[in-house]
Structures are given as structure tokens and as C-alpha cells.
């Protein structure tokens, strides 16, 4: 790498080091996503083709815009060499534009920068946020399961689960089979973070490498799943996480709770017979409870589905519907649900996400956590007595 770039010879850079500047640069990168469209010029109304999308070289991902791209031969996965692109900035992140001044051509895989894992800074899970990439983490695979999904026409298998280190836990999805098993300690290099349903997720794609670790300072899978509950004040501070455990009492229900009707296609709740996406539909009955759980330091919302609601309520969807036929007042049902839940002490583990209203937990497990009165009273007297001096 030349120490002082001259205008004549563009300096080759990695995307990680790309900064808005007038000095010419060049880089090799792969097109991660792209979209072709035509833009109408304001000056003469003529139409001009534009290809835009994301480029990545494994160290960073940047947005690109390519005016007058070749008609074909450029698609997702193509590796390109770009010489003298315009480097700008949008919301603090660099982006590149290929204009008539730039030279862009195909390149081979081998020309992509060779990345030594040591070059990727090591990070801990808690410090990772979308759209971070170009890092490595040492993690324990807490659990993993495969799921078949359809991407457009294509059927693909995605591996999903939970990773953890001493700083916290993070859910992941892998688009290739890295042969991950629960309990494995691994080093993951070259993944990236995305936001999925309001929560962060680590994505392992075909550019990611996974190396097994013989020994590492990592929590055991069981430790993560059976972690003691954290105070709600802390959960509110930290904004949830992929595996949160809390304990508190039910202090209220948020609407809609009780009997709800869902769109048969997308499972969204139906308001007055209309689905937000699919229009007028015949809703399917379902049970849910949006429980406000509070431990005195803070409160979270628990989004309980049908199975959990049935267990907590001690009734079934069928029984509820039968009762509704006898007494057609759904608000009575909500009162009954509140009556069944108010004040109960629950321990909940699940995935937390935070928005402007607070933390919501999608539960994986809900258990009753009532106190043992005798031993609690003894502990309290011991504490009370000892402090009296």
C-alpha cells in the first residue's frame, strides 16, 4: 500500500477503510443485493438506468449506486473491481456512486481481499448491533434447530438458534449448514447483524467461517437457559435480549387480551372483520394474553399465546367459545382472565425486545413462582433481626 496516494494511481482499499474523500480509491467487492430501475431526469425527461444495492468485501457493507450499468452480467453474487468511484456519505455511513468517471469491471473471487481471522476485531455479543459486520466472536451454541423456509420460489433450510458468551446471548440464523450442535464452542468470523422482528440477530452467510474451539471461557448451554431472573429495571435498561429471564407479579392486562380473532392467512388480529393486510376475512378464534408483569423495579409486557393463556387461565379455547355463546359479552371474558391472573407471581423466560413503550417478552417458558411463605418469613426475620444490631 503506497504511503501517499497520488492522483494518478488510485489507492486500493478495503470497504472498512472507505471514507468520503476526493483522493481516488479502488476496491474489489461482491454484490450482496441489487435492484435495477430507471430514473427520470428532471432536466429533459429522459430515462436513465440505475442499479443500486449493497456491496461487501467481508470487512464492511456499503450501499452503491451505479448509473448506466451494463445490460447484463451484473447480478447478486458478482464480484467487481471498482476504480475511482465517488465516495459520499449518508447518515454517517459511506456510500459509493459509479459514474462515467469510474471504471467498473468484473473481477475473480481470488481478487477479493484475503482476510485473516486475526484481522477481524474480536467483539462480545452485548456490544453488537445492526448493521455491524467484519468482526469475530467466540460463542457457545446454546441451541440450534433447522427450519424449512421458502425464499421466493426456492425452498431453503435455515438453521436458527441461540448463541451466548459471558456478556449475553444473541439469536442467530445460518443460511448454510455449519454443523453446529448445542453445546459447541465456536469462533464465528465474518457474520453480520440484522434486525429481525424488533430484535437483533446474528446472520451467518456463505462468507462466514466457523472454527471449533477446544477450550474457551464461555458459559455452558444450561447456564444460559437456567440463568436466574434479572430485575426488570435491568431488563428495561438493557432492552431485553435473546434470552431473558424475569420474575414478577401480574399487575394488569393490556388489550387485546382474551378471545381474539385472527386472519386465517397471516395470523394478524382482525378488527371488525377486517385484516390490515388481507381485507375482509372470516377471523379464526384464538386466545392470547398481554400480561403486564411487574417486580417493583420495572414492568414488562408478556405476549402469551394460546397454549400459555390456556394453562394460566385454566380453561380452553373451546370452553371459552362455548361460554361466549351462552353469554355474548366478550368483556366478561377479559375480566375473568384478569381475575385468574392478577397478583400471580410468574417466572418467564423468552426473547425480549424494546420499543418506546418498554420491553416486550415473547415467552418460551412461563412457570408459577409463588414464594414459600415459611422460609421467606424466616429469611425476612433473620434480615430484620440482624440489622437491628
Amino acid at each position, binding site marked *: 500500500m503506497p504511503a501517499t496516494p497520488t492522483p494518478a494511481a488510485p489507492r486500493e482499499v478495503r470497504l472498512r477503510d472507505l471514507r468520503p474523500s476526493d483522493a481516488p480509491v479502488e476496491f474489489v467487492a461482491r454484490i450482496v443485493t441489487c435492484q435495477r430501475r430507471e430514473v427520470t431526469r428532471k432536466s429533459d425527461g429522459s430515462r436513465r438506468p440505475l442499479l443500486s444495492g449493497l456491496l461487501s468485501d467481508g470487512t464492511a457493507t456499503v450501499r452503491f449506486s451505479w448509473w448506466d450499468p451494463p445490460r447484463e452480467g451484473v447480478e447478486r453474487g458478482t464480484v467487481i473491481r471498482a476504480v475511482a468511484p465517488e465516495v459520499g456519505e449518508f447518515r454517517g455511513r459511506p456510500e459509493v456512486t459509479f459514474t462515467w468517471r469510474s471504471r467498473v469491471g468484473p473481477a475473480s473471487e481470488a481478487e477479493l481481499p484475503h482476510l485473516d481471522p486475526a484481522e477481524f476485531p474480536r467483539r462480545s455479543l452485548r456490544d453488537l448491533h445492526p448493521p455491524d459486520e467484519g468482526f469475530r466472536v467466540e460463542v457457545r451454541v446454546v441451541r440450534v434447530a433447522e427450519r424449512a423456509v421458502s425464499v421466493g420460489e426456492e425452498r431453503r433450510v435455515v438453521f436458527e438458534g441461540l448463541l451466548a458468551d459471558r456478556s449475553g446471548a444473541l439469536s442467530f440464523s445460518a443460511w448454510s449448514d455449519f454443523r453446529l450442535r448445542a453445546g459447541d464452542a465456536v469462533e464465528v468470523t465474518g457474520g453480520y447483524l440484522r434486525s429481525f422482528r424488533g430484535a437483533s440477530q446474528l446472520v451467518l452467510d456463505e462468507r462466514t467461517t466457523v472454527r471449533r474451539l477446544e477450550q474457551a471461557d464461555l458459559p455452558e448451554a444450561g447456564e444460559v437457559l437456567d440463568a436466574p431472573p434479572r*430485575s*426488570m*429495571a*435491568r431488563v*428495561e*435498561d438493557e432492552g431485553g435480549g435473546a434470552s431473558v429471564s424475569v420474575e414478577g*407479579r401480574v*399487575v*394488569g392486562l393490556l388489550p387485546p387480551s382474551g378471545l381474539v380473532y385472527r386472519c386465517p392467512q397471516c395470523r394478524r388480529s382482525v378488527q371488525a372483520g377486517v385484516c390490515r393486510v388481507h381485507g375482509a376475512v372470516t377471523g379464526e378464534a384464538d386466545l392470547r394474553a398481554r400480561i*403486564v408483569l*411487574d*417486580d*417493583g*423495579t*420495572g*414492568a414488562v409486557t408478556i405476549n402469551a399465546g394460546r397454549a400459555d393463556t390456556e394453562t394460566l387461565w385454566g380453561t380452553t379455547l373451546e370452553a371459552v367459545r362455548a361460554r361466549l355463546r351462552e353469554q355474548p359479552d366478550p368483556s366478561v371474558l377479559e*375480566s375473568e382472565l*384478569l*381475575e385468574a391472573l*392478577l*397478583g400471580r*407471581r410468574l417466572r418467564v423466560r423468552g426473547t425480549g425486545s424494546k420499543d*418506546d*413503550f*418498554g420491553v416486550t417478552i415473547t415467552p418460551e417458558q412461563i412457570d408459577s413462582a*409463588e*414464594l414459600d*411463605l*415459611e422460609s*421467606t*418469613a*424466616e429469611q*425476612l*426475620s433473620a*434480615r*430484620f433481626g440482624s*440489622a437491628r444490631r
Partner: protein
Amino acid sequence: MSFREPAWRVTTRELEASTEEERGSGERAASYLLSPFGGRLNRVLVAGTLSPAEAVGRDESQPFWRARLTDPTGSVAVTAGSFQPRAMAQLRAVTDPRPALVVGKVHLYRGRDGTGYVSLRAEALRSVPESEERAVLAEVVAQTLDRLDLLERLAASPGASEESLASDGTPRLWVRAALESLRRYPSFDRAPFRAGLAAVIRRVGGTASVVPPPPPAPTVRVRRDVPPPTRTPPSAAERAEEALVLDLLDQVAEASLDNYADRRELLARVSSQGLGGSRAEEVLTRLEEDGVVEEPIVGKLRLSERPS
């Protein structure tokens, strides 16, 4: 970012002892009741024995019910109106004293003489088996002791930063509340309150019997920080004025549906008998200060059952 107010676990004594308030400014700002024991209370969870509710107010389109919740440390009024239909239905369903949990918002009413009166507007309540009441009281004691310990630590080292305290797991909310509590109640003796928690622990352990139901007459508890100045005994003319006001109060109360005399109506009648507005107010205030007349609900007067 304003998250939901947590339900502070408190004893009724903590509510009774709270006389300081923090009013939020701006739209939809929350108000807080600051307690001497480290609470910055908006929503609370209390447990105890709930007495049967009585209807207050006489406007039938605006029903309003009130009961008292008693725990081993004291008691607090629990109210619910038509804006809390579910809680109101629950409150009305209580026909005899029974263990209950109440989640509600605290409300401080300050009389004209500055007397504070805390009540609890119920958001949700439920009568529960005794074991559940005791379990909630266990949480109340544990968290109250936590807060008292925090106050002690803060009083001992006033320079301690919020960060350093929060790092050991103390909620920031509690630290801020405790600092404000120390500031607002600078010379409060917290020891008697702490000692009173022993009764709650006995209740948790089941060694204390059920809290007896509260006395039936809910009255304003008068607390004065400064003893009232001694006054010269009323003159004959003043006595005549008082008699007139009390007479009319009886009449107005009798004619009403709820047996309370509406304050405005009373003043109107008094003034029609020749006793002018500000003079009538003075007489009424004196009667209230002497404990002859009480105002258990804003704007509703009645004769005290036990005049002092």
C-alpha cells in the same frame, strides 16, 4: 422515553406518612407521591384486608365507591369510579372484610389547612386466599427493607454516585427516589417505621392473626406538623354563626341522597340567611379545624361522629 410506572410494593403506613408531592409538568405528565422511605410513588401494589365498599357521591351517573384496605401497619382508602369500571365492580363485590390485593395509583388530597390525605385509585383488585396476601406482604417487606437500607447508605455517603450504586444492581429509579426522599424529609426519624415492619413479618409467617377489619367510619386523619395556634374562645356572636351553619348543614345533608352536605349548596343557603361568603367560609373552616365538621370527600361535608 417514558416506560410504564412500576407498581411499588408498599405498606399502608408508607402511604399514610407521605406528605410530599412532585407534580409533573407538560402534557400527560405523571405526578408522584414522595415517601419518607425512599418511594417515588405513582402506581403501587398493596395487600391487606379490604372492608366492604360504600358508595360516595350522589350523582348516579357518576358512581364512586370507597373501601379501606388495612395491613398490619395502617390503612388506606381505596376508591374506584366509573373510569375504572372493572375495579369498581370488584370493589362493590366485597360484602364482608376479606384479604385482597390492590394495584392502583396514589392520590394526595390536600385540605385547605395543608393536611395531606392519601388515597388509592384502584386500577385492578382481587380478593385472594390469605396465603397470596401474605406472599405479597413478603415482597412488600423485602423491598421496603431494601429501600430503607439504600436510604441509610446514601445518608452515610452523600457523595455516592447513581452510577456506582446502580452498578451493584440497585435500580436507578430507586436511587433517584431515595435521594429525593432524603432531600424532602431531611430530619425524619425512620426507626419507628422500620420497627413496625416486624408486625408484617409476623403476618407473613402466619404467626399474627388476620388483621381486624378497620373501623367503619372512614375519616380524614389530621396530621399537623405545627400545632395549631391557640385561639381565644369564640364570642357569643360567633357561636350563633356556628349554630346557623350547623343547622343548615343538617338540613342540606338530610335532603341529599348520600347524607353529605354539598359544600357549595351549604354556602349558598348560609349566605341567603345573611352570613356573607368569606365570613361563612371562615366559620366553616373553624368548625373543620375544631373537628366538628369533616370533609371526607372534596366538596362533601358532614358532622364528625366523634367531635373533639
